[in-house]
């Protein structure tokens, strides 16, 4: 054993002689990623290191570049929690020979998903320990599990040693725990639980050395035999040793080069950013207006109430002050001792900041006798959440911690406070337009992983009357290759999404959506939406939604019903037949939804009902959410369609990433980027993509979400 596995002996010796770590426990953070996109300083082998919390890295690694055997892996890794790291990988492996019974290919494109959990941090005498699952959902080309320990020696050196199963147990294995099934569960796309920690096991290890702040080196002994790749001639494994050098250009960009198995040179480029590290912590926007305290005794003066011009003059002053803050007055009601202002917030993604700046402006513009301020945020022309504050508290707590004004604030539903409102003359009708570029991606198509269309898009919105909005968007493609996506094979379901290729073939202007929508407040805590027209690129019809969400509640319940008619492929004004090669597209679909703000940085959602193709099922979404608006989450949909009918990928799953632009620019803005990475565009579990769903629009104006970043109230 000593002869065959020098690395195990070395690892044990290293752990035995290592000196105690100063201080309590060390999570062994690393901003580097290895050749598989996972955090750590080694090459193909995992370590027990973790990335800093909320770190997101995009890693592209490749070897045999330019040859038939070129293997490229693109990974997205996210540090979900301090001890949990998740990686999504898309690999293209050249030179493989397809297995019997599987589809043929030139390059094998494969999706995989990894998780790593740090069981123990490094202690004074104990190494950090982690367990991991590599490629544990799906066809399992990279499938493996491991337990690994990492120990640091001083600030610069880290030793790692561990045991691997599956792919990580394939070279020089010294034992086995049961037998490892080879058959893919279902049709792929299901966690391969029957394989975990079964089969041959082998030892691996390595050492990484941080030479300078920017430069680091690594050497490892790899237990991954690359069996399939060696068999098919993709790589020849001349040696189990890998060596690597890594250079960190900046916090954001890192480049590595590796010598792999004595045969290939590999390259690795990583871009990282962190949801908790914005461009400017706390923002760099201009200062708010200071609170204007009232002179003692002035609050008793009600003389102004006899002057009919005073309220209008005060509102005029207030509107001017708020205009500079990006806040518009929608409606108002002024009494002798209270004032109610309805605002349209056009700038602040931190809604507490919008309310705070409005409160400050109100102290400067309104007569001294007005003591109760109520500020209601308007969404789509209807009142949403309302905050009531006492002017005395605002004056008293301007320089106190924000928690004190939160305790003094009352949150109510906007419908409770909208009596006797005078709507501003410029509230309706309002017209907005926007003309700009667009970029539309199609990823993970088996034949060509990245296709896109780019062009010009013109959007317009006409706010006709309270709750009534007409909206439309027209695009013209300028360049792109989405039209060369080929039609997938026969589907057991009506083609509700799988014929997207036909919709991408048109070169004339297309109507993305053209709708008239009504948003309503039928009762307290209840919101409604009805949208008619061309709802999305592929469907026209009607969509109706109802949402119950009290302002103080973490739970929301909703129901949506849609009537759809498929649109013509040219996406102009026509409709086409419901009949498709897989079946008839049903007229009705809809869902019941439950949304829950779990707290501790998580948000969950369940939707259950009938999907576009007529299949019944449910979708579970879990998102890691941050108070600054970042959200990284995954969803999975299971329907009553059998995996044989559904095809590859037994159920639909994907990743959703939301990045607020204010995080990147340092100035507040409502704009954000939402990216959904879907495993496959199939017909099962497909939902209508209608604009303006209620929950996303109103949740930020309610207490739970506002309280998370209430520190921005005084900002």
């Amino acid at each position: 054993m000593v002869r065959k596995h020098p690395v195990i002996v070395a690892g044990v010796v290293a752990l035995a002689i290592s000196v105690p770590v100063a201080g309590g426990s060390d999570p062994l953070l690393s901003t580097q990623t290895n050749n598989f996109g996972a955090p750590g300083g080694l090459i193909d082998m995992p370590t027990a290191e973790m990335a800093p919390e909320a770190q997101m890295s995009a890693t592209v690694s490749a070897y045999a570049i330019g040859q038939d055997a070129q293997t490229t892996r693109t990974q997205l890794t996210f540090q979900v929690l301090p001890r949990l790291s998740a990686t999504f990988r898309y690999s293209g492996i050249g030179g493989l020979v397809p297995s019997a019974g599987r589809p043929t290919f030139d390059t094998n494109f494969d999706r995989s998903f990894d998780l790593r959990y740090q069981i123990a941090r490094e202690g004074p005498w104990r190494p950090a320990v982690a367990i991991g699952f590599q490629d544990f959902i799906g066809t399992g080309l990279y499938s493996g599990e491991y337990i690994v320990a990492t120990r640091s020696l001083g600030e610069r050196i880290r030793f790692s040693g561990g045991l691997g199963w599956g792919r990580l147990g394939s070279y020089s294995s010294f034992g086995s725990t049961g037998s490892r099934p080879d058959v893919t569960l279902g049709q792929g796309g299901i966690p391969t639980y029957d394989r975990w920690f079964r089969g041959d096991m082998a030892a691996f290890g390595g050492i990484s050395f941080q030479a300078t702040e920017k430069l680091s080196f690594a050497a490892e002994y790899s237990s991954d035999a690359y069996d399939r790749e060696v068999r098919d001639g993709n790589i020849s494994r001349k040696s189990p040793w890998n060596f690597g050098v890594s250079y960190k250009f900046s916090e954001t960009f890192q480049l590595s080069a590796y010598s792999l198995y004595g045969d290939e040179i590999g390259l690795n480029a990583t871009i990282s950013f962190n949801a908790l590290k914005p461009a400017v912590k706390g923002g760099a926007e201009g200062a708010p207006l200071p609170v204007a305290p009232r002179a003692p005794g002035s609050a008793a003066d009600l003389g102004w109430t006899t002057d009919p011009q005073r309220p209008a003059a005060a509102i005029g002053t207030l509107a001017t002050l708020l205009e500079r803050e990006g806040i518009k007055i929608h409606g108002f009601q002024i009494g002798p001792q209270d004032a109610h202002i309805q605002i349209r917030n056009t700038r602040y993604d931190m809604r507490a900041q919008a309310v705070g700046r409005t409160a400050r402006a109100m102290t400067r513009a309104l007569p001294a006798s007005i003591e109760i301020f109520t500020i209601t945020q308007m969404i789509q022309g209807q009142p949403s959440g309302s905050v009531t504050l006492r002017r005395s508290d605002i004056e008293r707590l301007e320089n106190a911690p924000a928690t004190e004004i939160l305790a003094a604030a009352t949150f109510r539903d906007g419908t409770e406070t909208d009596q006797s409102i005078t709507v501003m003359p410029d509230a309706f009708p309002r017209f907005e337009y926007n003309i700009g570029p667009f970029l539309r991606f199609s990823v993970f198509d088996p034949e060509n992983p990245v296709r896109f269309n780019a062009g010009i898009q013109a959007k317009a919105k006409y706010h006709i009357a309270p709750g009534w909005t007409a909206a439309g968007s027209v695009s013209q493609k300028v360049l792109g290759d989405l039209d060369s996506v080929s039609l997938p094979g026969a589907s057991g379901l009506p083609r509700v999404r799988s014929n997207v290729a036909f919709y991408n073939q048109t070169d004339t202007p297309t109507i993305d959506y053209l709708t008239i929508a009504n948003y309503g407040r039928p009762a307290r805590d209840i919101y409604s939406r009805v949208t008619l027209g061309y709802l999305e690129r592929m469907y026209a019809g009607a969509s109706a939604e109802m949402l119950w969400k009290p302002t103080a509640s973490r739970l929301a319940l909703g129901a949506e019903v849609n009537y759809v008619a498929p649109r013509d492929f040219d996406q102009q004004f026509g409709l086409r037949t419901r009949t498709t090669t897989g079946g008839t597209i049903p007229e009705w679909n809809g869902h019941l939804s439950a949304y829950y703000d779990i707290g501790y940085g998580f948000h969950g959602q369940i939707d259950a009902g009938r999907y576009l193709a007529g299949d019944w099922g449910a979708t579970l979404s879990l998102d890691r959410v941050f108070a600054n608006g970042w959200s990284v989450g995954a969803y999975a949909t299971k329907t009553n369609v059998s995996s044989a009918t559904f095809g590859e990928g037994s159920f639909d799953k994907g990743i959703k990433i939301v990045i607020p632009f204010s995080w990147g620019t340092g100035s507040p803005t409502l704009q954000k980027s939402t990216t959904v990475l879907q495993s496959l565009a199939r017909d099962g579990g497909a939902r209508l993509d209608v604009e303006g769903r209620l929950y996303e629009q109103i949740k930020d104006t309610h207490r739970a979400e506002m309280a998370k970043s209430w520190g921005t109230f005084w900002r």
Partner: protein
Amino acid sequence: MTLAASLRAAALAAVALSLAACSNNAEGQVSALGTVQGLLKRAPVPKVPNPEQVAAMSAQTLAATSGPVILFALPDRKQITTLVRIETNRGYETYGSSDRRTVTLKGGMITATRGLGEDIMSVDISGVAPLIRAAREGAAYRTNRHLDGENITVAERPYCQIKIGSQSQIPLGAGSAQVTEVLESCVTDDLAYQNAYYITQGGRIVQSRQWHSPLNGYVIIQQLR
């Protein structure tokens, strides 16, 4: 995916997303490229203003208003400006600049800033302020609050020791003033800094160097009037 395909996609994405949009909504002008630039850019290094320029700026501000005026400098960022008092509230004086940045002082000690980046949101100096103003040696905790990367308020509680320094004559306004130097040395787990206050016989802080944030370093404030 092939390397060529991803490079091509990235290049076209950069071009497409950098084109500015036309809109009648001023708030809709942010582009994705602007966001990335914001993350990656370094602030331009401004030129250090020379003493003549500073004196001229101060004289201009003093002439334009009759209220209190301070000279406010960020040496690490090579910026210096005059701020005029725009509001008082229960002893907290807010000074503002023409480019919408404010500093709030209580008895000459910073209690809040806005618009500087990594702003001080609020402080609790009830322990250290009486010692400093009375120029008395001692030690107490202070609390400094700011927003973290998630826009959540975090509070630091450094332990501060107050020591009396030397007496000196410093130029002030048209003449000069006899001041006592009071040093406040504060320590937390991550940070150590030393604030210096120059106090006149009457207990007024006319000049000070106060720690702001890792982004801005120290702030120097001089009460011009």
